[in-house]
């Protein structure tokens, strides 16, 4: 008989676990520790100064929920809940990868950008080039505007790098 069971009751009684004496105590301790961990991660999600802190802490919230699911399924004596843990693990990994893409480049999937060929870019390098056709110049101008609209985080990042470069000198 565990402490939490006497306090809050249990949905279904697991007869296999009732015969044991060491495991229910450890399950209670682990459950309390996981709840405390979840509170710590939530504190970092709210407080965290950088976006990366929040991303990592949110992923760890998923891990804490997974461990709570494992403890609960051991208490209930069924392995049906483990598929929930598997789904949380997969979604956490996908979220982590897409958030890292977002932090690094400002957008997750590069679509809708106008792409110039290398030859075209070389051709347009000096703006006074009279041989460049109007169509090509319009295309280059549209591409410049598009990147200026899209990549505000990229400009911010370059500012950071510039500042670090200056501080080093």
């Amino acid at each position, binding site marked *: 008989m565990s402490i939490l069971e006497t306090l809050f009751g249990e949905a279904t009684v697991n007869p*296999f676990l009732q015969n*044991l004496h*060491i*495991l229910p*105590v*450890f*399950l209670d*301790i*682990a459950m309390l*520790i*996981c709840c*405390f*961990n979840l509170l*710590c*991660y939530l*504190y*970092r999600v709210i407080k965290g*100064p*950088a976006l*990366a*802190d929040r*991303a*990592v*802490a949110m*992923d*760890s919230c998923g*891990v*804490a929920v*997974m*461990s709570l699911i*494992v*403890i609960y*399924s*051991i208490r209930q*004596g*069924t*392995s049906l809940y*483990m*598929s929930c*843990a*598997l789904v949380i*693990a*997969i979604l*956490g*990994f996908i979220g*982590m*990868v897409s*958030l*890292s*893409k977002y*932090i*690094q480049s400002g957008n997750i999937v590069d679509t809708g950008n106008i792409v110039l060929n290398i030859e075209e870019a070389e051709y347009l390098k000096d703006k006074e080039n009279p041989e460049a056709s109007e169509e090509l110049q319009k295309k280059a101008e549209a591409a410049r505007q598009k990147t200026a609209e899209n990549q505000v*985080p990229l400009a911010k*990042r370059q500012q*950071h*790098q510039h500042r*670090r470069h200056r501080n080093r000198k």
Partner: protein
Amino acid sequence: MSLFIEIVVSLLILFGAIFLLGGAVGILRFPDTYCRMHALGKGTTMGIICFMLAATIYFYWSGVGLSVQSILSLVFIAVSSPIGSHMIAKAAYHYGIPLWKGSVRDDLKEDCEFIREDNADY
């Protein structure tokens, strides 16, 4: 024999909880984004591996059967969690989050400078 398996499962649960607690204390107390990521990456991976091992042993022992989902999630977490932490740390570095003032070495900075000099030639 039954008592031995019970003790093994209990110790695995306790070790997993202690690893997760170490990660949580690290994310509360460490001064830097990279230090916090370091604590979390190791702690959560090791903790969830211990939990999943305990669940697998317990389900096989108690007569539920071999729980394939817990083994699968163990392998998946062990492979994917370090990759995710690494990608987030790399993205944070290239975004320009500063290191802690007590940090000793920064090897990636020199590599980035080499790459930048190479790109400046073209």
